[in-house]
């Protein structure tokens, strides 16, 4: 991945579709169900806001062509989110769902530009897992 931002078209489309992608990702996480068991009902309430914020971070990192923003945000989340009951392993699983939904929502040439940033997040998140948490 280069530090060049994705094309204006991809940025515009992604920004416009953040609400749709958020809804789909949240539905898929809730359908998966077992992923929420650790943090319970409170997390169901804050989940949409968390996913939306993640996608907005992703959009902003892309818009300035600066993936290291994501790096820093992931480190921040690794410290903060366990306080809210969200484990690094859950975060990793959600990034994989985000990747999956982006591949479905965008044309292949558009999703390629976005997914390279999501892959960056996934790789970084693997290094933030707690000891004993599986990378798979």
């Amino acid at each position, binding site marked *: 991945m280069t530090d060049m931002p994705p094309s204006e078209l991809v940025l515009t489309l992604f*920004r416009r579709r953040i609400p749709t992608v958020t809804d789909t990702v949240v539905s898929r996480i809730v359908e998966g169900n077992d992923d929420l068991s650790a943090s319970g009902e409170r997390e169901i309430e804050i989940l949409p806001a968390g996913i939306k*914020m993640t996608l*907005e*971070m992703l*959009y*902003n*990192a892309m*818009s*300035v*062509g*600066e993936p*290291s*923003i994501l790096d*820093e*945000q992931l480190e*921040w989340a690794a*410290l*903060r989110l366990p*306080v809210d009951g969200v484990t690094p392993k859950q975060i990793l699983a959600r990034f994989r769902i985000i990747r999956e939904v982006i591949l479905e929502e965008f044309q292949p040439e558009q999703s390629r530009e976005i997914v390279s940033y999501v892959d960056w997040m996934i790789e970084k998140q693997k290094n933030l897992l707690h000891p004993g948490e599986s990378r798979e």
Partner: protein
Amino acid sequence: MNNIDRDIDKIQRDYLQALLKKDRKTAMALIEHTVTLGLPPMDIYISIFQKTQYQLGDMWMNGEISVAHEHFATAVTLSAMGVLAPHIFQGRTKGKRFLAFCVSRELHDIGLRMVTDCLALNGWDTIYLGANIPTAKIGDVIKEFKADCIGISVTMANHLDEAKRVISAVKATPENSHVKIIAGGYVFNMVKDLWKKIGAHACAKDAREALEIAEKVMEQP
């Protein structure tokens, strides 16, 4: 450590403790006491307010205090800044105008308030617009205030694009093209040279540095 530093250090620790105990009265009394002691307002801003806010932010991050508690503490600090206001807005100004704001949806404005007050303490004419400013009309405000320099604060990375749009709009307006733009806030402290990518002229990591940078940037053509 000299006597002033020792006084400030002790007051800072007591101020933090008062905020942690949700004791607004003691916190305010401590700041009023700094005025009685004649401690320099700039030192109070940097060594008490800024240091305390950083510590509270770390405590929230580690789950030691709730978001509500952090907001309470921030509200007290904003009130405490008011105690110092008579000492900030006095004396002659040097004719340079600074306008400060956070972009739409960005709510973390206390750092920018400190920057603005520190500039005012050093003779700048300042206007502080605060958090979550609808940016569509910001160009008109800059013209109206005849700002020489603007400060844009971004804490959360998800507001960077908005800041980039604002800067781009300011630069594209002929009447505002002379205006110097300083970026600041948590996200810029974390990612080196990020400010260049949103088109700012400079970046400052805290209130003291903002003052130096603002003076320097105004000397640039």
